[in-house]
């Protein structure tokens, strides 16, 4: 775990050194405190690995995003090393000049770490604890330079590490389920649109139809229709019979 330039926090797991496999790829997480300043923007650009293939961008909420880059591959083309660049939105740069603003920034960082799957927390003395996400820390006390706030990083052990890891996983799941919820809302909207379209169509054909058949009456009506059809010599769609062929595409 390293902290550079007062803006970047880098965390990586034991596999990142080159021993990663496609099942258990080496992961590096670079958290960039993005206050919208030019310095933060160039730090964000610098964090992107050269030659990395952008795989996925995830919205972490609160304006923060995480982008994954695959940087090494096995013979089958599966990624064995991944760099995840996390842009942590900490609001305008002016806020960071005060102690309160810096504390808020650290809380934003912890929120983003939790959304990424870490169990991260800060105590009243600004001690940052990190666990989970298969990360092995060599916890050294670290200082954010250029600010008055000191973060002492420590590695959790035993039950505390497990609890933090599980709560990190729960946070990540919560984040994913929020995205699922969004998609599901979109589908519901589409469903209600299609339903109103059917309703409009039914209304358009006029009052001659019974638009709201129950399943049992539909079955009964279809039996009557069967008898009626049998004594005809007509197709149902006799105006544009070829239109049905589009169905087989």
């Amino acid at each position, binding site marked *: 775990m390293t902290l550079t330039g007062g803006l970047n926090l880098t965390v990586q797991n034991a596999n990142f050194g080159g021993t990663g496999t496609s099942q258990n790829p080496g992961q590096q997480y670079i958290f960039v405190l993005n206050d919208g300043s030019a310095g933060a923007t160039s730090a964000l650009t610098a964090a992107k690995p050269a030659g990395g293939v952008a795989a996925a961008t995830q919205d972490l909420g609160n304006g923060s995003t995480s982008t994954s880059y695959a940087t090494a591959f096995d013979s089958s083309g599966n990624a064995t090393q991944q760099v995840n660049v996390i842009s942590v939105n900490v609001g305008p740069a002016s806020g960071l000049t005060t102690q309160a603003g810096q504390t808020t920034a650290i809380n934003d960082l912890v929120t983003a770490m939790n959304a990424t799957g870490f169990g991260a927390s800060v105590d009243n003395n600004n001690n940052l604890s990190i666990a989970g996400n298969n990360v092995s820390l060599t916890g050294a006390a670290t200082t954010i330079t250029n600010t008055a706030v000191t973060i002492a990083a420590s590695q959790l052990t035993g039950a505390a590490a497990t609890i933090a890891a599980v709560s990190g996983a729960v946070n990540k799941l919560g984040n994913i389920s929020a995205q699922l919820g969004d998609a599901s809302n979109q589908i519901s909207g589409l469903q209600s649109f299609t339903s109103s379209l059917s309703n409009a169509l039914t209304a358009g054909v006029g009052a001659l139809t019974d638009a709201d058949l129950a399943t049992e009456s539909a079955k009964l009506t*279809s039996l009557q*229709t069967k008898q009626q059809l049998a004594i*005809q010599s007509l*197709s149902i769609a006799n105006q544009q019979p070829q239109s049905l062929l589009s169905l087989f595409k």
Partner: protein
Amino acid sequence: MAYDPVAKYQRASEASAPPRDTEIMAFGFVNRLLGDDQDARKRMKALGKNHELWSLLLKDLSRSGNAVPEGLKQQLVSLGAWSMHYSVKAMCTGLPVGPLIEVNRNIVDGLRAQAPNHVPAPACPAAAPFSASIAV
């Protein structure tokens, strides 16, 4: 004029397969999809095709030149509206597709009764409405 293989195929099919046989095949095709709904993706596709089939039929039925007698037209439109509603509902809930298949089968039976001895040539490999293994 640009070469349009789909239009050409449609003209050729129209010349060779009577419209009623196309309808029988279309219902058979949709029922085969509906009968094979063990995974969510296939189920969605089958329900979508059922919705599409009925919407095509309803569109034609609502044209002024459609020669289907009023009473029968009324029944078909009611069934179509029901089938489309039911398809959309089934996409989002676990409603069984059995009733859709049963209604479609009744329509096919009615159409086939018009020409009891006629067996149409299959227009595409996916449509095999007369196979014994397929619930039509």
